């Protein structure tokens, strides 16, 4: 008998019966200023927050905040990087990227988690290997809770997708918080109205 059959048989003879499917439908999310709540979540997580009205302003924020960034990869329309990224590129070539600018698809007010799918990244490693990360997200794409976010996205639509809520961080040495463990040393969240 295969291991698969052995495990399934063992489960069948061990499992309890008479229990049905469960789900959770929270009441309507509390009304409140979603962007304000989102902002405070971003700041609490150690990110920087900017609220702007158009892509020109986004460009200005980025060139001000990341004046010393030389290698810049931008996935956001209207914001130019210093180099192009192609699907056939070896991900290792991204090791010298100073700044990645990506487009956030859904933002969650309660925890600042921002959904980004593979289709917006070209290379999955981009928002991790870059020394700094900027996410541009539209105000209308901010929802209250993770329940609302999962209702808006389809997690299996692309091969990979990620909620990013903060810069890379660790507290593994005596619980001292250090920003910039392996991934980006900073995260700027830019909300466009």
């Amino acid at each position, binding site marked *: 008998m295969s*291991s698969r059959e052995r495990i*399934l048989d063992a489960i069948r003879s061990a499992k309890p019966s008479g229990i049905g499917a469960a789900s959770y439908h929270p009441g309507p999310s509390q009304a409140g200023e979603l962007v304000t709540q989102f902002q405070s979540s971003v700041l609490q997580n150690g990110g920087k927050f900017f609220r702007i009205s158009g892509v020109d302003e986004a460009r200005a924020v980025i060139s001000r905040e990341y004046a010393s960034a030389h290698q810049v990869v931008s996935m956001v329309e209207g914001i130019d990087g210093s180099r192009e990224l192609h699907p056939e590129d070896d991900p290792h070539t991204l090791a010298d990227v100073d700044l990645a600018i990506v487009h956030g698809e859904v933002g969650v007010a309660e925890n600042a988690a921002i959904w980004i799918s593979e289709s917006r990244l070209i290379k999955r490693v981009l928002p*991790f*290997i870059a020394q700094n990360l900027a996410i541009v997200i539209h105000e209308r794409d901010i929802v209250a809770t993770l329940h609302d976010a999962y209702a808006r996205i389809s997690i299996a639509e692309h*091969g990979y997708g*990620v909620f990013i809520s903060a810069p890379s961080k660790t507290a593994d040495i005596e619980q001292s918080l250090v920003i910039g463990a392996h991934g980006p040393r900073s995260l700027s969240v830019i909300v466009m109205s």
Partner: protein
Amino acid sequence: MKSHAAGATEFLADRPRSKWHDDTLWFVREKRDAAMRTVPDWEDLRNAASAIKDDVLANLDKYLLQFEKAATANGVKVLWAVDAEEHNRHVLNILRAHKVRRLVKSKSILTEECHLNPFLEKNGIEVVDTDLGERIVQFLGQPPSHIVMPAIHLKKKEIGDIFHEKIGTRAGEDDPQQLTEAARGHLRQKFLETDAALTGVNFGIAETGGFVVCTNEGNADMGVHLAPVHIASMGIEKIIPRAEHLAVFLRLLARSATGQSITSYTSHFHRPAPGCNLYIILVDNGRSRQLGRPDFRDSLKCIRCGACMNTCPVYRRSGGYSYGFTVPGPIGSILSPNLDLKAYSSLPFASTLCGSCSDVCPVKINIHEQLFKWRQVISKAHGQSALKRIMMKAAGRVFASPGLFRLTARVARTLFPLFPTGLRSWGKSRQLPPMSKETFRDWYIKNVKKK
């Protein structure tokens, strides 16, 4: 095997360290409380999480098959492992098939449970743990002492010393910022050189065949996106039915673990990247046996947040190594007897049964009740020490007879304070509070009954 009490004595020998450990984990517990209070439907979420897991346990075979079918359709190779040994062999076979000599790992308590690292190293594979805490304990040749904070038993000076020896930081450097920066450089090189990456799995989603991995450091993603081979090791109980259930568990997980609203990265894997290979190994290793124990099957609902450890008055003072099991603390003490009742027979007794673990558990496992039930199983199987048997029998007799109880209460309040401290293990680090002059019964008759 060493008893919990013996292990605890060793940890407690270093008083300042055990005090720091106690205070630090309690602080994490307080951060958890603060995070919980920001979620108005917290108790509803706990109830929902527990009910979803009830469904998972009752239909585990169906959900695993659904998961396998969807994952296979997504181009993922699904393997099954009855036990740790088979899991380890699967990993080695995959690495050999792809001619891999170097493997980077993100945190996986399951691979600790399977003792994967020593097995791979014996077979010529270089294994690099990439979670900072795990890298630290790997340098020291130790297992993690906590499932979320692997190096919580260490002080920064010790970490500075091992970093000086292993990665050449300045002698005496113990600044967490500097040490983390050095580890960043060291591990970045490992990520860029690796041929394969292994991750754990926080949640597997039956309907989509995908899985979710949560980290703060981003180490899981750095590894898997730079390597052509990704292996995900997953305990069979990590299945959840639908994508929407992720919201329930993710709202609970990080808040319970560290007091964060969510981890920095919550990565969802469904298909291998173009030109890459993705494997999932589904591991039983005693889980189906635990499923067959009605009193203990709920332990399989655990999502490995570590909240029960942070709150436990015994864990906080005795440290993770005192348990001698991969998962320490209250949850480990109800999981481990399933694997080896004799070796782990002291663990269910390493508790005050205060119930704090059950109170903080995000999936509402009745941990302290299961601890009590394991005690009964263990006492039946292995008996108790002669002293404990005699004392329990005597206590039973005293409590059964009101007259004898009254007499004992009167005599004990005079005699007990006269006992030398050394004879009372309770008094090893505490003073006995002064005895009241009268018993509650005397007080009650005098003040209440007479009126």
